């Protein structure tokens, strides 16, 4: 293969590999560094909660809408969480119009798993009439610019949007909801952070950029909660890990999650 002509992509991949041998990355980051993260919340007035997260050049917006509906039969006293992701065609030349494909579905389900398994939302407090009426929390992930690592950007934006979301205070009277004037926060009891790592050659790097994703052997996303418990994992992309890789990735994820939580979710839950 090395005899064939180099393409810009293969030159990039080669360079990524060469730099990694010296523990360096294309954009000058250390192996375990995130790109610069900027967050903004409350940007969409019509939504109950919203957030925009930029992770380097990746931009993900999340809007929360809270509506009422019927609970699932196997959890009649709990509110419902629904996570959906749209890979909007303006975000990347590889995104197409149409219903969500497997990439969008995987993204939504991995973010969903993190929030659900960490029990970040106290769904029992979202019950209005047991078995009949509950609040449904819609988390809509909108990818605006795809420059790699959509998992972490989407999970962080979702958590920020949830923790700043407001709903009208309510009371239940004779199986009907009576809304009051003042706004209250959604009942949150935990905060999940997702950390994605890529294995390139024999190195693990945190927060792969799009360019790095093209050189990736395998990728793993690990969700960690407030108590440093692991609440979800997803190996994505073709490619393989050793057991040692995975346990090392879990440790890195725990350390990184603590760092991100302090920085971005520290003051948001009251």
């Amino acid at each position, binding site marked *: 293969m090395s005899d064939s002509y180099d393409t810009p992509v293969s030159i990039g991949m080669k360079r990524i590999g060469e730099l990694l041998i010296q523990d360096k990355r294309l954009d000058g980051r250390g192996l375990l560094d995130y790109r610069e993260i900027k967050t903004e919340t409350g940007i969409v007035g019509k939504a109950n909660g919203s957030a925009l997260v930029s992770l380097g050049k990746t931009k993900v917006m999340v809007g929360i809408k809270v509506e009422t509906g019927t609970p699932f*039969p*196997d959890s*009649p*006293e709990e509110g419902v969480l629904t996570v959906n992701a749209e890979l909007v065609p303006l975000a990347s030349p590889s995104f197409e119009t149409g219903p969500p494909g*497997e990439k969008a*579905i*995987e993204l*939504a*389900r991995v973010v969903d*798993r993190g929030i*659900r*398994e*960490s029990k970040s939302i106290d769904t029992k407090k979202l019950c209005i009439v047991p078995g009949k009426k509950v609040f449904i929390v819609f988390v809509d992930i909108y990818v605006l610019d795809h420059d790699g690592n959509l998992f972490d950007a989407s999970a962080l934006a979702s958590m920020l949007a949830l923790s700043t979301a407001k709903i009208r205070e309510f009371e239940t009277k004779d199986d009907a909801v009576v809304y009051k004037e003042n706004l209250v926060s959604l009942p949150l009891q935990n905060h999940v952070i997702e950390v994605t790592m890529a294995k390139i050659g024999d190195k693990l790097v945190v927060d792969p950029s799009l360019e790095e994703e093209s050189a990736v052997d395998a990728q*793993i996303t690990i969700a960690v*909660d407030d108590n*440093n*418990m*692991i*609440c*979800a*994992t*997803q*190996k*994505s*992309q*073709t*490619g*393989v*890990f*050793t*057991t040692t*890789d*995975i*346990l090392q990735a*879990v*440790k890195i994820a*725990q350390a990184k999650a603590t760092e991100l939580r302090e920085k971005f979710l520290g003051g948001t839950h009251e």
Partner: protein
Amino acid sequence: MNRNLNQTKNEKLISEDGKRADGRGPNDLRPVKIEIGTLEKADGSAYIEWGKNKILAAVYGPREVHPRHLALPDRTLFRCRYHMAPFSTSERKNPAPSRREIELSKVIRDSIEPVIFTELFPRTGIDVFIEVLESDGGTRCAGITVASLALADAGIPMKDLVAACAAGKIDDQVVLDLSDIEDQKGQADLPVAISPRTERISLLQMDGLMSYEEYEKALNLAVEGCKRLHAMQQEALKKKFAVDEEEAKGETEDEVSSE
């Protein structure tokens, strides 16, 4: 389906004597039965019964790709479809592919593709169909295990088989191979697939809550389970393809003489 939360909390998944609801110990697999070459028309097929799971897998290809523009110039297009029959669950499942099935199809494909010599068949496609006829927890692992056998049955050149098995946490204890009820009421589930020859992990998912120590224990236990499944895979392949030594001798001689 009338579970309420109090019930869930009181019900023990592991009894006083350390036995699970179906009588297994913490490190026991459910009984597994494998059959290879079950289907007539498919290029390769296999069937697995794993506990109450009943799963069929069929392989078609390498064959022409439809739609044609999806064909790849340098390797085969490897596709997987994981699908559950409407009658395979306690409540009828809508036969249209759910989001869960679409995600599982993707991760199953990602877990098997690394062992296939895809570059041997450029411009073609290999399709794997996994049909869950009855489900009882752990269908993705059973699906991967049986699909890799169907690929072997189809004679697709592979670097290795893929064997899968889950570990999880129930009643604060790490156990192997969760059943449906243990998955629903338990605390965590960690499905793993490995290529047994190199012990590389090609599928890893997890949901639930585990500490680092529990995670490490569960991961190692799941890998151990995969190895046991691999032994059963080999056994099933031998049963189907091993030939009588006398016969084999005869055949080789025939071949030599005809050359």
